[in-house]
């Protein structure tokens, strides 16, 4: 709306009204996928199941990539070796979210953060959530440590790490 236009003429048609008064068809596509995780992410997820975090080293730019990749996107070459990095790190950036993935509201916020892991290269971080910390206490540069699921509950998924907590 602007200074001159205070309202639009007419009115919006509600969904229910559309169904009752007009011809409408509903269709729901069932879209299901089973993505191949590949060598890099497959090994990374397998590592998580064993309670370790794996990265790949590029010998040319000397970066250690976490999550790992079989190729270095900067040098465009195959990465060279597997590296085990620590499950501790530093918060690079974070966000305090009051919405769920389906956009519904949350009473207690979820703290989403990018964690630069100890042993990985600068500016290489993994996206995860923070726990055991009040939102107002979170700071960039804060040192954190992974809190893992019990070994028997791990499935080879990023959620095998429950969250990162301050250390």
């Amino acid at each position, binding site marked *: 709306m602007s200074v001159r236009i205070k309202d639009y003429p007419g009115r919006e048609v509600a969904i229910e009204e559309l169904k009752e008064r007009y011809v409408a*068809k509903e269709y729901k596509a069932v*879209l*299901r*996928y089973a*993505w*191949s995780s590949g060598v*890099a*992410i497959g090994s990374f997820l397998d590592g998580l199941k064993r309670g370790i975090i794996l990265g790949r080293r590029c010998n040319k730019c000397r970066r250690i990539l976490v999550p790992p990749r079989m190729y270095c996107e900067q040098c465009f070459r195959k990465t060279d070796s597997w590296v085990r990095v620590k499950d501790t790190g530093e918060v690079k950036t974070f966000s305090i979210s009051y919405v769920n993935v389906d956009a519904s509201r949350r009473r207690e916020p979820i703290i989403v953060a990018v964690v630069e892991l100890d042993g990985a290269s600068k500016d290489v971080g993994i996206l995860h959530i923070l726990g055991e910390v009040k939102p107002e206490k979170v700071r960039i540069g804060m040192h954190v440590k992974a809190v893992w699921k019990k070994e028997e509950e791990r499935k080879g998924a990023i959620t095998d790490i429950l969250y990162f907590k301050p250390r």
Partner: protein
Amino acid sequence: MVLKRVGIVGIGYEGFRPSLPDISTREMMFMAASRAYEMASVDPRKDVDTFICCTEDFWEGWSITDEMVPDQIGAAQRPLCTVTSDSINGIANAFMHIQSGLSDVVVVEAHSKVADVVTKEDVENLGLEPLYLRTAGVDVDMLAALEMDYFMRAASVSRANLDELIVLEKRNGLKNQRASYGMVLSREDIDSSESLVEPLKKYDRAEYAEGSVVAVIASEDWIKKRKLDAIYIEGVGWSSTLPWYDGGMVEKAEYVERAFKMARKVAGKSYTAKSFDRVEVDDTYSYKAFQHLFALGLSKEDVVEGVKSGQFNKGGGSMGAGNMIEANGLYRVLEAYTSLENEGGQALVVSWRGQPTATGGVLILSG
């Protein structure tokens, strides 16, 4: 103003298997790209001006896939766009990038990781008109069966004609080391095979395959400066026409007829389908190969004779190598490239985007 000539200086691929469960889409693309760059002697981080990737989000199962494609083809922080269509359209875009002066070197990638799609039919059906086709329970195979039945009557093509083509192509596939679906097949095998939707049988439809193909395309000036060998793109054309079920042509594929006309105009030559040493034509459904070749002005005798003599789909086409969705066009270019590189001559590539579209592309190549 004289437009620049455009050539293909390298082509690489990975996969061409029914399923590649051990590598991810990105790892597959990286290998195909690495091979193409090695062949073209280019460093993608320095030598390539623009990158084009042919992807469709519904096949990827990933929204805004274009943001996920640069790294594995060497395009991180470089100009890249995606083309949501068959890869002949991707090559057409590369051709225009070069002829307009935007780029000297363009990379085109297309792939299929279709075994990762659990509900393929649902993805295909999203292409159907939503009000009267999709909700009526029609699917793409029904549409193909209806078109096939209509086409066979309108163009006087018999079941025996189709069988002959399938048998020959499957056998050609067996001679092609990269084709996964080559086999020795008899007419009886086709006859006794599962009926999908009458008259469409299992062998009338190419099976799906996974793979990635990457082509490095460059201006003639650049190619000469680098002293490289190239397969030149003499002409390119594309077209979308009215689908047969909306009243479009059925006895021949009008989109191919128009795309061929456009490609000839770009080439500035009056080619006929018989001018080419090699024709790679869409055969994702058996009857479609006839429909596409009829659009080039050939008879049904020409079609079977052409397959027999090795002029058409010598490597087995999609019947032999599988349907690789958006990579089908680049797969056919790869087949043509291999042949031209070894034997020279001229090749024609004819591609189609699949049911329910009436969209196709044509490429004229010379060795």
